[in-house]
């Protein structure tokens, strides 16, 4: 049986969703997996929905994850987790940045932001962790770190080690921006700890 790992990363244009997926794909590639990564990000930089899919294993055919077959859903925003939760397997792992980003159509009063998104997500009964990765990133002084915090959160749900994933992150700027290495390590470890404690409680 060809074991393929399916990871879906979702969020909003500009949050770093595609970069996170890229880092996950690279980590798998460095372990000699066959890897495919795809995204739907039509006008992503314009605040629209972004979904990125990473598939890896001995042999991957379609780049697209079949609905209901994702092993992990990594969501950079609360309502986006709700939008995509049905893509997960029944026992798939759900990792959510519970920060809320309301689009203009919500602010204009044309649509409502879902009130009990987290409760609805919990009711699925899957292993789940929800925490405010944006707050952690801002605490560390840079909202861009959300990306690394979320990668820390997903680290325990992967078929390779957290250290291997972290190395893939910091190697991106060890040469060019060495001062960012320690900061990203902290962000990663905070995300990892936040999600690990919640996932442990569920299981």
């Amino acid at each position, binding site marked *: 049986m060809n074991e393929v790992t399916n990871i879906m990363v979702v969020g909003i244009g500009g949050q770093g969703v595609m970069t996170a997926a890229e880092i996950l794909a690279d980590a798998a590639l460095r372990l000699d997996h066959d890897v495919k990564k*795809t995204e739907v990000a039509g*006008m992503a*930089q314009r605040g629209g929905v972004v979904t990125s899919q990473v598939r890896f294993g001995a042999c991957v055919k379609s780049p697209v994850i*079949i609905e209901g077959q994702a092993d992990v859903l990594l969501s950079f925003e609360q309502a986006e987790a709700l*939008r995509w*939760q049905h893509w997960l397997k029944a026992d798939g792992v759900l990792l959510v940045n519970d920060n809320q980003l309301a689009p*203009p159509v919500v602010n204009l009063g044309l649509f409502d932001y879902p009130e009990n998104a987290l409760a609805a997500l919990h009711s699925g009964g899957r292993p789940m962790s929800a925490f405010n990765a944006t707050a952690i990133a801002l605490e560390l002084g840079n909202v861009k770190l959300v990306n690394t915090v979320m990668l820390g959160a997903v680290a325990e749900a992967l078929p390779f080690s957290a250290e291997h994933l972290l190395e893939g992150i910091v190697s991106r700027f060890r040469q060019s921006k060495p001062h960012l290495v320690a900061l990203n390590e902290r962000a990663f470890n905070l995300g990892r700890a936040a999600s690990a404690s919640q996932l442990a409680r569920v299981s």
Partner: protein
Amino acid sequence: MAAAQQAQIGQKVLVSGNEAIARAVWEAGTKVAAAYPGTPATEILEYLGLYSDIYSEWSVNEKVSLEVAIGASLVGSRGFCAMKHVGLNVASDALMTLTLTGVHGGLVIAVADDVGLSSSQNEQDSRFWGRFAHVPILEPADSQEAYDMTRMAFELSEQFNTPVIVRLTTRVCHVKTTIAIYGEREAFSLGGFAKDPARWVMVPTVARTRLPFQAKRDLKLAQYSETNPLNFSLSGVDESVAFITSGPAFMHVQEAFPQSPVFKIGYSWPIPISALKNFASQYEKVLVVEETEALVETELKAAGVENISGKDVLPLHGELTPDVIKYGVAKLIGAPITSNLIPAQQVFPRPPTMCVACPHLGPYFALASMRNIHIAGDIGCYTLGAGQPWNALDTCISMGASMGVALGMDKGRGPEDENKAMVAVIGDSTFLHMGMQGLLNITYNQGNVTILLLDNRAVGMTGGQNNPGNGMNLQGEQTNRVDFAKLVEALGVAPERIRKVNAYELPVVLKTLREETKIKQPSVVITGNPCVLVDAYQPKGPLYVMENDCNGCGNCLDTGCPAISVTRRETVVKPNGREKKLAFVTIDTSVCTGCGLCTKPCAPDCIQPLSLRGDLSKDVSTSPSLGDSQ
């Protein structure tokens, strides 16, 4: 950014189809590569721009990019151009004659179909250009094939004396898959331009003599298709349904039905009709899985093949995925369609919108507040002005269409539209692509149209590429910069009807638009504020809302700036008994870049620079904006 560019022979890299194509174009010894940006093909030329030993350019439109590639071919070099599907509509005038002349150096056109319309005004199946233009089409399924087939395409071009189209879809362009690099740059030259009017000057007498050549070439290309290894079949143990497929749909078929026989078409035009008939004859049921139209299916049915299905069970448009194909097969064999899927939750839509501090926000706020105008729009970020909260764009057809459409509305109007002002909205790059001719047509025919030229000094929608409007080339080097005021004057607009405005000065924008729409002659209102995604944009410190002073008027929300959000809502009853809904707001200071637009309509004047707030516990103004994190 450039894994393929830096890769050595034997190395495996994870790259998009676009990046793989750029590597192949470089390896092929191509001397000239040209394109106009367009999703999903844009990155091909961006990657080619990284190779210093190839001439690569942003052309002003796709037709010009093809003509540049033709010129390179004529002088014996290999030429390449890339475009999105609608780009080939623009370039087709050149293509339809190029196919008669044939080529000297190999000439390859990469055309990317935006299947599913992630960022396009229509959906097209570019394989049909094969039949229409009598040219071969290669159709990769992933990055490795994109790399392999682009290399082959140049050889094919020279072997058969024809331009070759490499047909891509979004799932090839933007999907990253691993490829094995096996080539370095080749030297290529066929040596100089050989003057030969009977070959290159397509006047009727000459072109007529080329038609038989084209017909003979069609036959040769069709024969070649039958034996081409890009067209192959795989046997399978589950013969209940066999598949004929091409492009990324092949991967989806393999995913969904790994045990089934499948014929994979890689050389998509002319289709290998005999090989396909032979394949189909071996099975009871054959399903043709193709994106997007029923090209192969129709050909096979015309050839008398009866046991095939296709669009009778598969969708006529949009992307095919493993799920979609499974559903189609269930319909075909009459199996029950079961689902153990978790139902999707209804969540508010999150349509793309303009960026924080976008220079288009002000002009659209102004347009939205004007009455009695019809707004002919165009292709670019500003097409988003059709959405909330502005609802200030009435048409969108094709690149540059705002000009002709606005003039046609003006000339064709009846009594119902007598008091309407006709406004055309167009961006800098779209204007230079195909809008200039339309403006000349307006002035020449004395139309009564007000043109809003939103010059943001970039091709914004595709990611902020350079163009003649900002005076920088593909490589980011300074070059000639067009002066829009002089340009539109040269096209016939009276100097006093050319008005430059600062897009953030809302009262000025509004006043200028009101004045110009009242005057019954062509006028052009030009903004000049750069796109927030490009280096020329200079962010300022963020603004904040003095929450105690906010009276809930909600005017700032009408700018549409996504940095502004509602913290609470109230409904009050006014003295006249009417209810008024209030929306109290806050500004996300981590993304605000202080453009100041929202301060203009703010009734209580309660939006201020964050630097003036006394209680700053820590400085968040150094946080980079969300918008530049990718």
